[in-house]
């Protein structure tokens, strides 16, 4: 009886959890790390196919190039859904990969590992990629 009382009144010790497999939560640094890989591999596959197709179609002459353009535009000459998804997707992927790539180059020098600086820099890469993508398409669609 006495033993039970002691056990019941003893506060539960909250021990730190090991950052292992299932004990973690998302942070900006993790998001930016996986985005760097996703945007890089995305551009490497989708971007390469569209880029090489674009160059080969240009080299193939007027009719071949018209086939390429038709795939991504409406009959009125504007971009279609596929054109917008790939166009905006690739520009955002480029700006994100550029910013997180610069982050990696800075971290390669041993700098930027302090928690606060690391988090701030990670968030800034996303802010930059979104703003740069909006600026790019605003210029292309409205500014010109």
């Amino acid at each position, binding site marked *: 009886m006495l033993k039970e009382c002691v056990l019941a009144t003893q506060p539960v010790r909250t021990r730190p959890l090991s950052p292992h497999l299932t004990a973690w939560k998302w942070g900006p640094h993790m998001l930016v790390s996986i985005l760097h*890989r996703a945007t*890089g*591999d995305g*551009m*490497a596959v989708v971007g*390469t*196919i569209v*880029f*090489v197709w674009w*160059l*080969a179609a*240009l*080299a193939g*002459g*007027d009719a071949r*190039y*018209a086939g390429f*353009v038709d795939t991504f535009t409406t009959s009125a000459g504007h971009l279609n859904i596929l054109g917008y998804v790939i166009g905006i997707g690739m*520009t955002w992927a*480029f700006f994100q990969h*550029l910013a997180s*790539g*610069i982050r990696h*180059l800075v971290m*390669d020098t041993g700098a930027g590992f302090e928690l606060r600086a690391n988090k701030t820099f990670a968030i800034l890469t996303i802010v930059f990629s979104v703003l740069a993508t909006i600026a*790019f398409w605003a*210029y*292309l669609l409205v500014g010109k």
Partner: protein
Amino acid sequence: MGNGTPLGQVRGLGAAREGTHHWWHQRLTAGGNLLLVLWFVLSIARLPAYDHATLTSWIGSFWVAIPLALLVISVFYHFRLGLQVCIEDYSHGPGRIAWIVALNAFVLVAGAIALFSIFSIAFTSGAAA
């Protein structure tokens, strides 16, 4: 660092004789990509039109064909290294060899088509400067 000769321990290269060149080349090409792809993206945005004649005369210029060819070399080498890391991280077992061979084939074929197309446009569009 093993128990090789004192000189071998100082060099720190191990039995493979190399180890950091993938990592280092990824950084070198990252620098090349930073300049070349920014130039490409900004140049594309500033083009007056995107019809066949405008684009082929643009690519036909000395000042575009050469940076564009350099872009293909730098970017394709960079993404080959990047996709290799991805395959090495997620593909285990014998399938990994097939993926790496397929990756090399993809990069070489896509790179050859891209470079041939650029030079083909540059040498036939007539604009030499």
